[in-house]
Each structure stands twice: as C-alpha cells, then as structure tokens.
C-alpha cells in the first residue's frame, strides 16, 4: 500500500481532504479508454475541458484532436490547430476531400509502456488500475520519458519543470466520476471503461466489435482503443 500513499500525495489537496479516495480500491478496477472516431465532430470541448480541469499550461496538451483529410489521390493531410481545442475551420471548397475524420488523442496508458521503463527514478509509474502517472514530487525533469513516448503524449510542464501527461483524471475517477474529456464530449465519442466491471458497456464493445490501437507495431499495448480508425492514422 506504499504506492497508495504515493497516489495520495499527487492527488489535489481537495481529494486528500475529503478522504473519498480511501474507499477506492485500485485492485477492483482496470481502466481503459474507448474512442469512436466516427462520432467525433471536432468541436474541441474535450481538450478545453481537460485544460480547465487539470490546469494544463497553454501550448501543451494532455489531449488533442487531429483532423485527417484524405483526398482520393495524394497525401493525407493532418492538422490540429491549437490541438483542435477551438474546433476546426471548414475544408476549403476546392479541397476535393472525399474522406475526412477527426481523431481525438491522449496518453494511451500503455500496458507495456516505454515511458515508465525509462524513468531513471521511478517518478513515472503504472497504477494497479491501469493508469500511467507522473509523481511531480519525484520527477527530476530529465525528459527521457518524453523522448520514449511514441505518441507525443508527454510534455515538460514549464511551471513544475517536470514531465506532465494525461492522468485519466485520476483525481476524478477514484471518486467515482468520469474523466473531464469524457464528460465534456457532446456526442459520446469518448468513453471510459472498467475492464473489471462486467456491466460496463465499453467491455461489450471491446468484446464484440473490431477495435484498433495506435502504432500497434511498437508493441506498447495501448489501453486506449479506437473504433473506425483509418490506416493513415499514426
């Protein structure tokens, strides 16, 4: 339970004060994330909610949205202005785009994560319930994890001078709430799932539908699953 003490340390003050986390048993959960790219409308609500909820510094992203526009011939065009936080401009009329879709991204909370492997002091760690977190009180700010993450999910927080990333809103999910991004999504493109909860609808989708993960060839075992992913998405 020493690790639980670490968790308690990095939670916001209010979560510690209310004591609600003491009832939370991380062995009873296994969090996964499901994104249905077919539903995403690129409104950016998730990224805005994340920034507000987690006080993410400007210019850094714990979550972002990419727009993939694929013309019938030629190269795919991917853009993510301000991380898609403020939505997207419409395609120009002469763009001739036949296939276009949005891909929300965040830390994949990989089960075989390269980022915690390389942390020289163990400040970046995996929780028993599937989260990949950084303890800002231990992080030395070497940036090795930023280099090791193949998804660009980590950044150096200029205020704390430590590595920063999506926490799966750990301060919320340990209190029975959902993540800020899931809650803000108006179309249900993002879902948080608990593999240890047999009644969780996400489990039904993972069990019956064809899902994809990002950069599967790297064998990082992402725990963020996608529906409707195109082969062009990296």
């Amino acid at each position, binding site marked *: 339970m020493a690790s639980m003490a670490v968790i308690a340390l990095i939670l916001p003050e209010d979560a510690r004060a209310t004591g609600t986390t003491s009832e939370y048993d991380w062995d009873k959960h296994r969090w996964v994330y499901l994104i249905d790219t077919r539903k995403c409308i690129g409104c950016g609500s998730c990224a805005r909610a994340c920034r507000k909820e987690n006080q993410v510094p400007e210019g850094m992203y714990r979550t972002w949205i990419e727009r993939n526009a694929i013309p019938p011939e030629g190269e795919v065009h991917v853009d993510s202005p301000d991380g898609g936080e403020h939505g997207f401009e419409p395609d120009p009329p002469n763009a001739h785009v036949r296939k276009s879709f949005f891909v929300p991204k965040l830390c994949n909370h990989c089960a075989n994560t390269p980022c*915690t492997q390389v942390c020289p002091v163990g400040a970046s760690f995996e929780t028993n319930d599937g989260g990949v977190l950084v303890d800002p009180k231990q992080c030395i*700010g070497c940036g090795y994890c930023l280099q090791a993450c193949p998804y660009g999910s980590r950044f150096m927080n200029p205020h704390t001078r430590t590595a920063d990333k999506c926490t799966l809103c750990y301060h919320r999910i340990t209190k029975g709430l959902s993540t800020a991004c899931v809650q803000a999504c108006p179309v249900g493109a993002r879902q948080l799932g608990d593999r240890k909860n047999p009644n969780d609808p996400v489990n039904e989708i993972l069990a019956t539908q064809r899902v994809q993960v990002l950069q599967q060839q790297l064998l990082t075992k992402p725990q963020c699953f996608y529906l409707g992913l195109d082969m062009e998405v990296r």
Partner: protein
Amino acid sequence: MGHQLIGSLFPNDVHIHWTLMIVLYPYVTGLVAGAFIVSSLYHVFDREELKPLGRFALAASFCFLSVATLPLLNHLGHPERGPMVVITPNFSSAMAGFGILYASYFLVVVLEIWFVFRTDLIRYAAESRGFKRMFYATLALGVYDTSEEARALDHKITRILTAIGIPMACLLHGYVGFLFGALKSNPWWSTPLMPVIFLFSAVVSGIAVLIVLYQLAMKIKGMAIERDTISALVRWLWLFMIMSLTLELLEIMTLAYEKAEEWEVIGPLLANQLSISFISVQMVLGGLIPLILLGIVVVMGAYMDDRIRNTLSMVASLLLLMQVLAMRWNVVIGGQMFSKSMRGFRDTYVPGMFEKEGILAAAVILILPFLLLVIFERILPTIDHLRPNTSDLGLDLDPEPLAG
C-alpha cells in the same frame, strides 16, 4: 520562437527538450573515454612511443570526467533531485545505470592517477615546505614508500587498473549511445549500431584532443614534439576515424537502401534540416578531409618534414573534434527535429546565447576541463615530467625525510 513547422506534428512535439547540454554530455564523456584509451595504450599495451602521453592522457581523462555531469545537471528541470538517480534508481531505466557507471569509472581513474603519481607526490612533499608539503603529503595518504618493490607494485596495480578501465570506458560511452539507441519511439536513434558508433567516435575525439593538447603543451613549454608520438597517434586516429565514419555511413546507407518506414523522415531530415551539419560538416569537412590529411601523414610520414606532419595532424584533429561534435548534434538535435507523427518537421533549431542551456553555458562547460587540466598540471606536472633532467624517482633532489 524563430522556427517554423512543416507538415503535421503532434502538438507536444514542437519543442526541443534535449538541448545543447545533451549534445555536450556525450561529447565530453567521449573525450573521457578516448583519452583513457590512449593512456591505456601506453600503460597496458606498452606502446613506448606513447609514453609522453601516458600521464597527460590520464590527467586529461580525469579533467573531462570531472565536468561530465555538469551539462546533465544544468539540463535537469530539478537538478537538486539529480542525486536520486543514484539513491533511488529505477533499474528498468537505461539512465539509472549512469550513476553506478560514472562513479565506478571515476574511482578507477582516481585510483590509477594516485598509483601513477604516487612517487611524484612523495618527491614534491619532500622538496617543499609548509602548506605545500602538507598538501602533497596528504595526497600521498601517508604512504611514503618509494622502494624498488613499492614502485614495481605501483606499476603492476596501474596496469591492472587500466585493464579494468578499458572495458569501463567502453561501457561508459557505449552506454551513452545505448540511451539513444534503445528508444524504439525514435527512428533516427533506434539502432543497435548507436552504442558502437558513439564508442568509435569517442575514441576519435579523445585521440584528436590529445594531438591538439600535446602539440600545444609542447609549444608552450618550449619542448620538442616527439615524431614517434605524433606518428603513432595519427595512425590510431586514422584507423578509428575510418571505422567511425564507416559505421556512420553504413547506418544511413542501410536505411536508405531498405527504404524502411524510418526513411520517410530520415531522408528529408538529412536533405533539409541536417544537410549542413550532417553532409557538409560531419561527412565532408570533418570526415573526408581529415581522412585524406591523416592518410597523407600515415603514408608519406617517413619523408615528411616534422612541421608539416604536425600541422597536418593538428588541422585534421581540429576538424575531427568538430566532426564528433557535429555527430552528437546531429543525433541529439536531429532526433528531435521531426515529430513522432513522422509527418512533420521543425525547420531549424538555434540555441540562444544566454539562455540556461544556451551557447554561453555550453562554452563555459567546454572550457572548464581545459582550465582544470592547467590546474592539474600545476599540481602534478605531466609535461615537465618529460624533461630529461627529472628522473622517475627524483628523491636524490635534496630530499628531506618525511615523517611517518
């Protein structure tokens, strides 16, 4: 920001996290390893022609080693937590090995210096008075035995320590290459060749810096530059630079020929962002030209005027020092010029002059080991030691018996 983004990058990938300091770190440790290898050629492999450098190379290695952690500490977001890498290491991290490797290598070098300079320390203590005497006596650790047997034992231990030091120097620097080579997230770094390339270029930089320093030191002291010493150093340098350059080229050629997915970013990277620093500096100016210059010295050496040999080797060494620095730059900065989306690039990266990890800080860190070397030379002369009138033992020079 002074730079532009080309293509589509992951939004967190627009920053250069590993800056000039991380370029310097492998550069300085490379000089450490290279200088140590030269000293070992004398101490273990008995290359008599390198005798003038036996001690000097060791001192240089020590001075570079002393500053090797500075760029890292200056880079860390929380340098005050730096020691935690040694105190609470996470052994799954390649970086966690640094403290152990660095500390044990430092110990070997310090021990070796002590055994090599022990009789000198005793002599300096005997020759001096007051504080100076106390200083040298303290450094001698109260052991004042300069008998034939004691010196034979010193020699033996030095040999063993150097023999241990060679694989450690290789490990220390191979490890630095491993830090980059073992990251599957980055196609420009991820290759098992990386530690080997780092190691060979380390030896190149170490020999090159010794050629430069040896010639400078001899000029300053008004002593003769030994022809055999320079010729031997040039031969070793030529050999190691050929191997280093071959490996560097092999890596690129394999990727280009395979047309593997890595080439999607590495091709444009070499053609645009690194065209000057890789092709012009690392391959041509710092690669091809020294290869020819050193080749001339190696092949024509016997017929060559000393001044021409010295000048050619000096120029080639300076170019190679630049080449190895360019190689470090190309690896460290080059690997961050593209996004992990493999679809976007930064156009340039120019470090600021006065920023925390900027050019000025880098210059200070690079100059520091040379200042240390001057101080080292003041305390434990490695060059004056070569003058014919100072014997190995020298206790005949008006010795005053030491207590203890």
